[in-house]
């Protein structure tokens, strides 16, 4: 297979086949639209959170009291690295026809994602152990809900990754699987962007307040 045939611009769905690209367009575009809708959800939770930091602490813990920057920094490192490794998986999808490398990068991504979830779960448990439970105040309700929503999204991304891995093993790099990995990549990177917002407005702002 010639290099020119593989090194096409645009959507990574294998050989430069205009028909395949024409069919992939709506699917990818549709997913972008879905992401937009999903981002509205996060935007509203973030707005709710920000209002609650001002008016909702009810004499309980304030953002400064519960911010653990060290833990947040490690979580950020894990999640951002996982976005990088997913990028490597996307490159493997685009330039390699063998699935081994793709599997490997997806596995690394999944491990980093699991690590992120584990650390965050420990954060939640630690807060709860200190009595900073969501039932304590509106602020803590918002804190747990905002981070919990992101947590659930990452978990859903991991479940999706597992399904796609099974399909990759069953069917190889067929068009459906390629398109699913590409959409999963979008989803994963979006969660990264959301996390950067959370890191800035929850953790950095919390530590600085």
């Amino acid at each position, binding site marked *: 297979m010639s290099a020119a045939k593989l090194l096409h611009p645009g959507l990574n769905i294998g050989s430069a086949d205009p028909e395949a690209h024409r069919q992939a367009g709506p699917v990818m575009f549709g997913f972008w639209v879905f992401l937009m809708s999903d981002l509205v959800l996060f935007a509203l939770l973030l707005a709710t959170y920000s209002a609650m930091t001002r008016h909702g602490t009810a004499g309980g813990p304030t953002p400064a009291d519960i911010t653990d920057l060290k833990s947040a920094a490690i979580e950020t490192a894990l999640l951002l690295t996982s976005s990088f490794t997913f990028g490597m998986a996307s490159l493997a999808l685009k330039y390699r026809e063998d699935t081994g490398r793709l599997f490997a990068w997806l596995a690394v991504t999944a491990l980093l994602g699991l690590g992120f979830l584990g650390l965050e779960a420990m954060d939640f448990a630690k807060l709860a152990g200190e009595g900073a439970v969501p039932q304590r*105040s509106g602020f803590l309700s918002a804190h747990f809900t905002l981070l919990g929503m992101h947590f659930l999204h990452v978990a859903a991304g991991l479940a999706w990754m597992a399904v796609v891995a099974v399909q990759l093993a069953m069917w190889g790099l067929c068009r459906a699987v390629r398109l699913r990995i590409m959409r999963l990549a979008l989803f994963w990177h979006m969660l990264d962007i959301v996390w950067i917002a959370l890191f800035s407005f929850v953790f950095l702002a919390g530590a600085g307040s």
Partner: protein
Amino acid sequence: MSHLDWTDLLFGQLRLSDFPPKGNMIATFAAMLVVVAALLTAGLITWYGKWRALWSEWLTSLDHKKIGIMYIVIAFVMLSRAVIEAALIRTQQAFAVNAAGVVGADHFGQLFTTHGSVMIFFMAMPFLSGVINYVLPLQIGARDLVFPFMNAVGLWLTAAGAALLMASLVIGEFSTGGWSGYPPFTELAYSPGEGVDYWIWAVTLSSLGSTLTGINFAVTIYKKRAPGMDLFRMPLFCWTALCTAILMIFAMPPLTVATGLLALDRYAGFHFFTNALGGDMMNYANLFWLFGHPEVYILILPAFGIWSEVISTFSGKRLYGYSSLVFATMAIAVLSFTVWLHHFFTMGQGANVNAAFGIATMTIGIPTGVKVYDWLLTMYRGRIRLAAPMLFAITFLLCFVIGGLTGIILANPSVDFAVHNSLFLVAHFHNMLIPGTLFGMIAAYMFWFPKAFGYRLDERWGVIAWGLWSAGFLLAFMPLYALGLMGAMRRTAQFFEPAYQAWLYAAWAGAGLIFCGLAALFIQLWASIRKRAMLAVPLGDPWDGHSLEWWGPAPPPEWNFPVIPKVKETEAFMRMKREGTAYEEPDSYEDIEMPRNTAIPVVIGAAGFVAAFALTWHIWWAALAGVLAMWGGVIWRSFETAPNEIIPAQEVSERWNAFLAAARKAQGIGRRDETTAANRGLAEHQT
């Protein structure tokens, strides 16, 4: 003790006492009505042996046309329920001046809550989703929506929500917190029962379905238009569908967040909107109306599209001011996100904030005014035919302007302080939603029914329905303006002001007329089915239509068009008729790939219903099972390797040739005769 624990574990809070008979006769009767109607329907299907056909041809179908029709069936069922409730609400108030009336205060609260929730989420939303589903792909020259599977999932989630509302009529009680469900009243402290939970999960199911549907419509319009169908060559209905879809994409998530956070408060003891510990109910008001106001335009914009099609068709004229209508629609869509605060002018913002939102609200009157003039100028010097949909259009134009003017009055914060939450407000939004949205949907139903089923609806009963609905609307709601100005508040179970009495009687009579109007619609359907041979329009163009959906036979084949047409202008089909190409054979046919039927969307919807019902009654195992089954359905679908089937070119060619042969034999008719038996769906040849 251990016996009780097991009962809790298995049935949550559900007890035998939650089943009928209920505390009062009316509630018991309503519950029995639901049960009997369900059993009767099931019995009739069994009697005629139609279960298999129903399952394999309808419920599992991914065809946008069938999904559209099923949406509209849901809408009509729910419309019937909500109209009956409305009649009961009017009856109560008419007989509750210095008296007890016919229902208790708590029951009355459930009535206005279900009436509003049903009308918005399970009548108007399914109706407009159904009409767009049916018409949009045909108008833009596509074979289906871009995501047929997701389309069916949206339908079945909506159906699950509607079923939950019907279940609430039989088992337990519904919320008394109004369709907007404001906390802290809807918090556990003040509404401890299952009612608010019913409301939360029914609305959540519907809003998830609508988000998916919105994405589907928008992507279809962007990506699936026929060659040559530039955005500015789309029929106006497609533009309104696009704006509605965009609003759904952005405005449904706020509703999901609002109900989700309220659920966290109620189920997990969080404090988003509670009175104590930092809860902030104003945040709920903001979230809800951040959805709620765009929602108003989600409801009205498709109707504007329908009115544009109906008025242009029955005036025999090209739509006046097409691009101004497009820009007005877009302007309304954008402005709809800037006015949500006018729903709570009285809730403590400063005067400057109120003024800003008041002015933003008044600006919406400008693009809407543009539209009204465009429609009037479309009619001007047209050869207007007063078919039933056109009669509805005229009622709409007259009444909608009155409603718009009262809206401008309410947009003034200082006036709003005087009439906020009074019957004046109730009159205003019914004045927009009944002549605007509901009449629009009824007109769409009468207008496109011949396309969908191959025969027209009976004209005489259509006119009777129009007369009853129009007179009923005016009689029921004009008195409410007066009552509101006299100080009567909405959602009031009893009044103590004798001066209200005459007005309330008038409104009661109006509700009776509306009820008769609903009956007339069903009689019309019944009469039309009986006379379907006489009313048949198999050639598919009963009204001398302008756009592509009228091209080809009625009902259209699953694949819509023999070949994807090449579009040269907005009135694509009219141009084909003028050029004489509408009834010709294409150069060649191709195999067509269409989605295969699948049961998975029905399973997802059923699982959604189980999850929602179980959450309402705290039956945790069933809730978990339901949610897992929903996601299981999605994953199951991803393992289906051959979701499509091929329709051979031969079959397409045969069907089209049969249609062409029939069209050549038929006699085209002049438009003046379109409501006579001579109308077979072929327009007189134009030159």
